[in-house]
């Protein structure tokens, strides 16, 4: 007769996450109005610590780090959102079909997806990006491939449990076609879970993007990108130029944190057990 007290949905987590993400998206959209300098403009003010003139200091080429941080949000968001859309566009329909129809196709797809899922995601992305050559578009492909299994597995699992649910049986007896059932009855019920997985997956994809960028697989100089700028600042670390690395890395963490907070809050609200 124990009364189990479920922790309340942490609404504040969701809101804190939304505020962080919204600010960064705002920054990316209005970058030209927010950034005080051209992010690629080199000056003689090299390696200057943060001051009123350059609030995050300048890098080894005299570029304003704050402006680079502001513009840097553009590449991350572009890569991560495009890749995520790709992954969802492939993973969700495959999961629906696989889970709904079952059979051999389901078994083969599941085995393939499980294998990709088991492989270290960043290493897979590195392999793909290396084979395709470094570019923003290829990075999108690499990251997209890595996250397809996540959406597939989640959608398939949900579809399987929903398929046997009563209302689908009822819809079937009335004579609705399979694809109509999937569209009208299963997909809407999978959506809340997709939303949760989406936010958690984006958080992870941000870190993968930053990793690829740090290793030089996405942009080349002088394009500003957080991961890339971090690796560019690395040689100046032993000499104590802390501002070159602190700010770009902090932004990566904040953006990932924003999505992770939303995901954690949502998963507590919508799913009993976290995935």
């Amino acid at each position: 007769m124990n009364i189990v007290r479920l922790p309340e949905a942490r609404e504040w987590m969701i809101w804190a996450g939304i505020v962080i993400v919204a600010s960064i998206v705002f920054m990316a959209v209005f970058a030209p109005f927010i950034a005080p300098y051209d992010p690629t403009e080199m000056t003689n003010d090299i390696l200057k610590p943060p001051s009123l003139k350059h609030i995050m200091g300048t890098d080894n080429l005299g570029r304003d780090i704050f402006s680079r941080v502001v513009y840097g949000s553009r590449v991350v968001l572009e890569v991560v959102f495009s890749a995520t859309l790709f992954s969802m566009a492939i993973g969700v329909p495959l999961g629906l079909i696989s889970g709904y129809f079952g059979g051999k196709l389901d078994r083969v797809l599941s085995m393939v997806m499980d294998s990709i899922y088991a492989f270290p995601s960043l290493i897979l992305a590195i392999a793909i990006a290396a084979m395709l050559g470094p570019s923003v578009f290829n990075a999108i492909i690499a990251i997209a491939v890595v996250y397809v299994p996540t959406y597939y597995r989640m959608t398939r699992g949900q579809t399987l449990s929903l398929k046997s649910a009563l209302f689908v049986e009822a819809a079937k007896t009335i004579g609705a076609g399979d694809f109509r059932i999937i569209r009208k009855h299963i997909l809407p019920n999978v959506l809340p879970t997709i939303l949760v997985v989406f936010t958690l997956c984006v958080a992870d994809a941000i870190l993968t993007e930053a990793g690829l960028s740090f290793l030089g697989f996405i942009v080349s100089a002088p394009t500003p990108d957080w991961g890339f700028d971090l690796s560019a600042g690395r040689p100046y670390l032993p000499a104590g130029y802390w501002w070159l690395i602190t700010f770009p890395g902090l932004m990566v963490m904040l953006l990932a944190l924003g999505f992770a907070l939303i995901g954690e809050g949502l998963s507590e609200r919508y799913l009993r057990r976290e995935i």
Partner: protein
Amino acid sequence: MGSLKEYIIMRALLVIPTVFILLTLVFFILRILPGDPIVAMLGQKVPPEVLEKLRAELGLNKPIWEQYIDYLSHVIRGDLGRSMIWGRRPVIEEIMDRFPATLELTIFSFAISVFLGITTGSIAAFRRGSKIDTGMRLYSIIAYTLFIPWFGMLLQMLFGVYLDLLPIGGRIDPGLEPPHITGLYVLDSILTMHWRSLESALAHLILPSLTLGIVLSGAYTRLVRNNLIEVLNQDFIRAYRARGVRNRKIAFHAMKNAFIPIITLMGLQFAILLAGAVLTETTFSWPGIGTFLLERIQYRDYTSVQGVIVFYALFVAMISLIVDVIYALLDPRVRY
């Protein structure tokens, strides 16, 4: 009920299809994706004769299914080809040279992450709903979202540059390498009683393994917390209390039960550990497989890159086999 040995053999046989799928995947990703890997690696300006010669050497001019059979039969024989640069050594030898460094780093990081994860996760679970619980959950999320190179550099800056306590790169001070037995410097220095080597190896390990360990601990905090809460709500815990068993002992039983599902998840976590190790190795100039992979990508050494990816696939499959066997040993409900 069969014997444990039979179970292990059965489970080992089941690894074969997994490995097969992974190898096939690697093959397709490396060969079928749009674009020519040779062109992608060497750039557009390579003279056609050189290109043709390379293709022939790598067997890329054969029909795709023939390439696939060649590739599989070589991998099965443990032959990952020869590297395309620097003395053209067999790739498997080059990998085995670097593997102990990665293994040493992952073992220490794994130990740190499990220790931190269990501590924070069980504190959160035993005080669920409290402020401490919320704090631990925040720790879990923040640790998980730390960007490894950034976090590593912050630690380098603090402990290496400002406090000047620890080295910020490499595996050991030059000249202190212990005699080669396993290739794991810590183990080898203990076995051969080279205490200065041990000291140096440990000092070099602290920052990279802390970086990777802390980042990975976030996922464990969450796993331990959720599993432990689930176990604590089960009837048999209440039954223990009703028999007057001390809280300390009940906590022990609860944790034992919570770990069984966590062990299976450790297999998947290990893949994340390997991925994180690539970034950690780069940040700390750690001469492991991750840095090897990136170096060979830079030198456009195609066979080495493919070999490393295949090696990772085999490694992941091995780990999942080991995890399953440990699971079977620990859980009496598993029928062999």
